[in-house]
């Protein structure tokens, strides 16, 4: 019963929920037992958000705890740092280079730390960084950051590329399908 645990972390409003739903749909089509745990309500308002996706033969708990994640997909640098303790030793960390100041930094009560990526590497994470915002803009919209990052995650999983593309096509609105497929490709090939 070797289940795989993936965390998608970011800032409320970045579209982590859509990414987790697409991931869930792709995994389901491969015949896995899947559980996806989401955050709704107050935490969505620009706060730190986390979604857990677990799959395998049979999944019990829908949440992922410290030291349990095989992969963390981080939509923002500070969130990558916040959730690092949830990564298994040697686990993969895919991180967007984007930074979004949290309110304590905006008010001057705290400083946005320098050198997050070197610190993550020093802590033992197998880090892969990408500038998802630029790739999303190249694909046609800053809002497609989530699908770019999903593409980067998809590359790390043993699911055929076509399965993901079908999941993207059937989940997003038809008028945005082409742009999202471009965004997915940018992330997948990054």
């Amino acid at each position, binding site marked *: 019963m070797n289940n795989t645990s993936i965390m998608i972390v970011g800032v409320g409003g970045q579209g982590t929920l859509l990414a987790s739903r697409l991931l869930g749909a792709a995994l389901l089509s491969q015949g896995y037992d*899947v559980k996806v745990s989401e955050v709704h309500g107050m935490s969505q308002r620009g706060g730190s958000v986390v979604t857990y996706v677990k799959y395998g033969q049979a999944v019990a708990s*829908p949440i992922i*705890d410290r030291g349990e994640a095989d992969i963390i997909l981080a939509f923002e640098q500070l969130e990558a740092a916040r959730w690092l303790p*949830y990564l298994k030793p040697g686990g993969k960390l895919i991180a967007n280079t984007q930074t979004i100041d*949290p309110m304590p930094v905006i008010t001057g009560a705290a400083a946005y730390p320098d050198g997050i990526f070197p610190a993550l590497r020093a802590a033992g994470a197998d880090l892969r960084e990408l500038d998802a915002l630029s790739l999303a803009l190249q694909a046609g919209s800053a809002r497609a950051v989530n699908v770019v990052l999903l593409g980067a995650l998809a590359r790390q999983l043993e699911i055929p590329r076509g399965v993901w593309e079908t999941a993207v096509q059937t989940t997003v609105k038809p008028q945005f399908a082409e742009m999202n497929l471009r965004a997915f490709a940018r992330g997948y090939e990054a």
Partner: protein
Amino acid sequence: MKKELFLGNEAVARGFWEAGCRFVSSYPGTPSTEITEYAAEYAEMDCEWAPNEKVALEAAYGAAVAGARSFCGMKHVGLNVAADPLFTASYTGINAGLVVAVADDPGMHSSQNEQDSRHYARASKTLMLEPADSAECRDFAAAAFALSEAFDTPVLLRMSTRVSHSRSLTETGSRAEIPLRPYEKNPGKYVMMPAMAQKRHVLVEERILRQRAWAETCAFNRAEYHDKSIGVICAGINYQYAREALGERASYLKLGCVYPLPERLIRDFCAACGAVYVAEDLDDCIEQHCKSLGLEVHGKDVFPRVGEFSQSILRRAILGEELPAGALDLAVPARPPVLCPGCPHRGLFYVLKKRKIFVSGDIGCYTLGALAPLESMDTCVCMGASISGLHGHNKADPENAARSVAVIGDSTFMHSGVTGLINIAYNRSNSVVIILDNSITGMTGHQQNPTTGITLKGDPTAAVSLEKVCEAVGIRRVFVVDPYDLSATEEALTQALAAAEPAVIISRRPCALLKYVKPKPSLRVDPEKCTGCRACMRIGCPAISMKNKYAAVDPTQCVGCGVCVQLCRFGAVT
């Protein structure tokens, strides 16, 4: 049977739709909201948002008495509001099935307290089921109607954040069309005045005994034996945590019915296992039941009383094991939730802070006005308490009236604010109430309410006029302002506080996240004019930050609301 990924709340809606439910009345509240939103997608069910949970439960009860299987959903604190009808509906029983879902929030992801709804089941002598995943959400919701009718009782369905908001695999079935059960006049059953209620109470006590006997053998409770050196008694999400932490190193008594609790089943399980642990977050309801039976079990001696559980907590408490995890040599600032860019509440709270006003707060997005840098809230207790609490404060300290306000959202005002306002007018406190009318129920994710003129099903309907309600209850001074206009907002506040009589300010501007609210082009900072004075930072807008000592606007976040423009003395933001 093909399985699909269902959100727990979605599966509940599916379950009661399949069971032939016809009527749904609820009030939104995280983590329960999506049950009713998904329910509204089924054409066969008449689904409504009620003004509050008490009205919702009374409406669902009325429909059940009329003979329609009916449902009502709410969050844990909502059941405090709906407790009045629940306790007496337990006496009258129902006609067609009545199911009440109540969603607890261990860990308080989006709540003001961490109360345990199981106490309500015991206190109201009402059967309570608790599912552990989406498949059980569907099955239990459907079965709850049959149980409700078999025992002539409302049935409580206890949800929790992780069950409500997790997706897992669920089978689906077709809908059973169940005709209306004929209503027959029966005052002895349905009119609860002392002579009748005294007789009904006897039946309620007999019903609990029958339910207790049923709980011994019902399909909702099951023992799973693996290694018997450790036994775990658990329900709901804690069963999943236990299975994750212990696998087949332990045996499980998984309780799907959490009230009333069985006796023999628990005795047999404890006798078969070595050390027995009762793994329940929040209160020790099952543990105390075991101890009342004279059984030796571990519970709150090893598990926390505060916060939600996880597999790690169980692993540590039962096995003494800890997983290795990476540590980071870096200070990571917190990222609390914030008012969104363009939020209409921001300008109002800025004015309240500037004027050093005592703010009696309430439940909604605007509770975030309590956080830095706005820090414009003194109290927040429960829905409606901003207004009634301010009245009491001003009665005790009349001088406070000239420098204090209550703030309450449009939906919360409908929920239980209007009665507080009536109290202010009737009992004559010189209080100022600000209704933050953003034309939607915001915090729970954009639900319609009686002020919006649209029903849950999306149909146009009568819209409550806040101005007319205020006037009708006896408030003579009602101001309407646009909170994007800081000087007009401050002027209205000055006038409202100056007079020796109560006043209402309606701060009106639709939520910036509403689909029909089109963002304006992003503002930008002229680096030639910006002096780095940080005046624009005082409103706590997530779209503005300091970059190299000067203000910068993030064009991906800014919606051009213009509140920051009014703070810049140098004309640097345009």
